[in-house]
């Protein structure tokens, strides 16, 4: 029984997965309410499926990039959960999850708006192998990178007019969990966000 948690955007994506089947799933736009509703919504999946928190044997959590506060909400739940029950936990990039949810068999380019002309992005091949590693870059620079790639599918939840072939991100959680369920586990104490960006105070200090 695997618990999947992604709160790295304004959406709550979570599921309980067992033997290649979704037992319960949540995909909802929670806007600014994530901190309030994330845990009760996750708890409601257990109630509906008549499962106990101790039935979970592994946690997969998205650790960024995305909303700083959002990432920390899901990650805190996940690491406290894994630590307290001493179960394996592994982290994945939001961008990896997005790439796996592409609709076409092409090169996948997940993009998250990071504001002020910047994006969080990466480029993944057809087998989800990394072509451009996850990073925080200027949108214009990403467009440069993409000039050399003939066909690709952009996956995003944000508004970009710059790309022809764009798919709205709707996570295929079963596919994500099956793909990453054997990724190396991490000590819960060492599970940390991947912001891919320093805080403003740190940047100004440099």
């Amino acid at each position, binding site marked *: 029984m695997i618990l999947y948690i992604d709160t790295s955007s304004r959406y709550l994506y979570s599921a309980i997965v067992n033997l290649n089947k979704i037992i319960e799933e949540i995909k909802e736009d929670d806007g600014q309410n994530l901190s309030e509703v994330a845990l009760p919504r996750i708890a409601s999946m257990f109630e509906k499926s008549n499962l106990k928190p101790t039935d979970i044997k592994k946690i997969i959590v998205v650790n960024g990039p995305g909303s700083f*506060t959002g990432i*920390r909400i899901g990650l805190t739940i996940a690491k406290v959960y894994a630590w307290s029950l001493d179960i394996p936990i592994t982290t994945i990039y939001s961008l990896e999850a997005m790439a796996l949810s592409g609709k076409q068999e092409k090169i996948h380019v997940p993009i998250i708006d990071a504001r002020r002309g910047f994006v969080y992005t990466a480029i993944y091949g057809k087998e989800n192998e990394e072509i451009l590693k996850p990073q925080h870059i200027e949108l214009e620079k990403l467009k440069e990178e993409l000039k050399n790639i003939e066909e690709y599918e952009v996956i995003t939840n944000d508004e970009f007019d710059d790309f022809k072939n764009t798919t709205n991100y709707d996570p295929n959680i079963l596919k994500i969990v099956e793909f990453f369920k054997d990724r190396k586990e991490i000590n819960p104490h060492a599970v940390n966000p991947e912001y891919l960006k320093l805080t403003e105070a740190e940047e100004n200090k440099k």
Partner: protein
Amino acid sequence: MKDMYILGIESSCDETSVSIVKNGTEEIATIISSQIDIHKDYGGVVPEIASRHHVKNITIVLEECLQKANMTMNDIDAIAITYGPGLIGSLLIGLEAAKTLSFIYNKPLIPVHHIAGHIYANSLVKELEFPLLAVVVSGGHTELIEMKKHYSFNKLGGTLDDAVGECYDKVARVIGLEYPGGPKLDQLSNEGEDTYKLPIPLNDNSYNFSFSGLKSAVINLAHNEEQRKNELRQADLAKSFQNVIVKSITSKVRKAILERNIKHIIVAGGVAANKALRKGMEDLANELKADLSIPPIKYCTDNAAMIAAAGYYAYLDKRIGDLNLNSKSQDILQ
């Protein structure tokens, strides 16, 4: 009633802390992970950096506390959490951790106001007697709170602008002391004389305080001395400033004791560690024959023991939350 062990979590500013307290009075174990050295480089707490450290530290602090207490989560009867006020990003880490533990172990979740925590730090030292006056002095608060019984709070007055600790840190900066300058200013004042004339702020008939005028007076004074090429006698300024602060606070506390028939005065919050203020409060309590409690320094700064202690009395008052609990950056203690 059987013994009740409460696990408290506090993350409202730059300290990640977890504590286990028995029956609201007996501290079993407390762990505090402070970020003070990290924020020193920035001259104050940077909220985003604080949040990033809380999420890094939270499970480590939880584990160390349980180990120190030689207990497991199954030995815990309830979880108390600082829901506010404070830095929202920081508060949320403690909140999500507390909610997750409450969910997994099916234990009651008790929301605690940060100031109630500071007040109940005293219950770890001495039983509270009512009617009681809590003098809450910290970097974010300056309040006089009357309590006629447990977990009942009536705010008599508070600061109209800066908090007293905030004023300390700003004045310390003018004097040239490194952040956090309050404690350093307190120490420096021992070497000085009260020679600078500063206004006693809001010297009126209310229970309120105002410190921004005093802060401006110090800034102007330092500026004028510089213009006149006079040397700023740091220690004398520290002493003069402290005297005004202590006079301002004790005059309002005196009024409250006399008018509200107060039996027990407690001083709470980070500035309760200030030696000049402690001395001023002791003299006043002696004069008016009131009981005085000032928590040991370790309970003055932010810690989870005080949250677990307050949580016990909040629980007895049936103030229990659920998984929908959210953090609040601002909230009135009531």
